[in-house]
């Protein structure tokens, strides 16, 4: 097989053009063989562009904040609790929720590939898949968090969960103060994708 190991020497645009041609050739031959339905590819892409994303995870968190019974279910059996909201499926088959507390902050990584809970967060961001995060999250989590603009209190412990098996982790951030009057939808609006991975916390926007 012709190898593109010389990709390294192409500039950025040529590199992407090279991959575009390579992927197009692959799709073309597989379609010709009747192995691939291009419309199935479109459906997959549309699903992750418009239907499955971190809003799912934010809703899980909001419900856990608003409903203590659900929060306990989530702690005891996250797969079932999350499934009860309709968020099931690929890369979310076996879920665990890990709760931040004043004593412990949780951070999720996959050092070996980029395992990520697609069903509640959608597709992983580039930084999550990149060597810098995968290498340093387990060894230098405070340094990594500072690169996200997050400085934790000195005495707060950090628990790093390396996703080495088929269990997927969802961080449940602490509920910020002064949010008692908010609805679940409004609470979900506060929860960023990064907070669900552990590279951010949830803050209430300053009143203007």
């Amino acid at each position, binding site marked *: *097989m*012709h190898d593109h*190991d010389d990709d390294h020497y192409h500039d950025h645009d040529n590199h992407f053009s090279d*991959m*575009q041609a390579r*992927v197009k*050739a*692959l799709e*073309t*031959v*597989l379609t*010709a*063989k*009747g*192995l*691939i*339905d291009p419309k*199935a*590819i*479109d*459906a*997959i*892409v549309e*699903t*992750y*562009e418009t239907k*499955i*994303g971190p809003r799912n995870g934010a809703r899980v968190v909001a419900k856990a904040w608003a409903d203590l019974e659900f929060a306990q279910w989530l702690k005891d059996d996250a797969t079932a609790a999350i499934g009860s909201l309709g968020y*099931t*499926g*690929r*890369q979310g*088959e*076996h879920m665990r929720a890990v709760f931040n507390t004043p004593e412990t902050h949780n951070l999720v990584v996959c*050092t*070996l*590939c*980029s395992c990520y809970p697609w*069903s509640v967060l959608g597709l992983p*961001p*580039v*930084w999550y898949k*990149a*060597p*810098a995060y995968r*290498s340093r999250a*387990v060894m*230098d*989590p405070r340094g*990594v968090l500072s*690169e996200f603009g997050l400085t934790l209190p000195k*005495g707060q*412990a*950090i628990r790093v969960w*390396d996703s*080495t*098996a*088929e*269990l997927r982790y969802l961080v449940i951030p602490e509920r910020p103060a002064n949010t008692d009057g908010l609805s679940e939808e409004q609470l979900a609006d506060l929860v960023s994708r990064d907070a669900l991975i552990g*590279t951010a916390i949830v803050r209430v926007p300053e009143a203007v």
Partner: protein
Amino acid sequence: MNGPHDLGGQHGFGAVAPEKNEPIFHAEWEKRALGLTLSCGAFGAWNIDESRHARENIPPATYLSASYYEIWIRALETLLERHGFATAEEIDSGVMTEPGAPPKRVLKADMVAGVLAKGGPCDRPASTAAIFGPGDRVRTHNFNPETHTRLPRYARGRVGTIEAVRGSFVFPDDNAHGWGENPQWVYTVVFDGREVWGEGAEPGLTVSIDAWESYLERA
């Protein structure tokens, strides 16, 4: 295997660079790469562990300079050729020259929602009782297989504590190589940061992995 994928604790990759308002896809080819990988997985010819092993087997210099989706495409090409769906020449040229192997299933557009919603559960009944329980002190195996494993290098030969028994799951080290699913109990094992990184480790750091039973022995 001690491949380029096993990145935990490696130095030299610089700062994490989160992109503001990162798009879900950076290029059209990435969309096709995602769809192709999932569509071909639906053939039923290989399992997720074999596909991960195909990615980690990419030569280090190539792996470390490639983007995620490029890694996926390179691995996919290997799998397609290995399982007889396309020849190297066909993959290169995009021109079909022979029918190739028939798949068990072809993913059509109307099947996508159901297939994604079902996913691929990996839990299986175990044939033995779990050996360890919460609170047990265990030592991880110090081994360096050239075959697939999900025990990262940084976590080999370490003493940790079982936090929980998570259920029994397909054993990837065997499954990747066609040696059977051979389900084993999986345990969350927690290591103090100092156990893994030495006295200079960040205070208050703990790291956990999910480890199959055969990775562990009583400490």
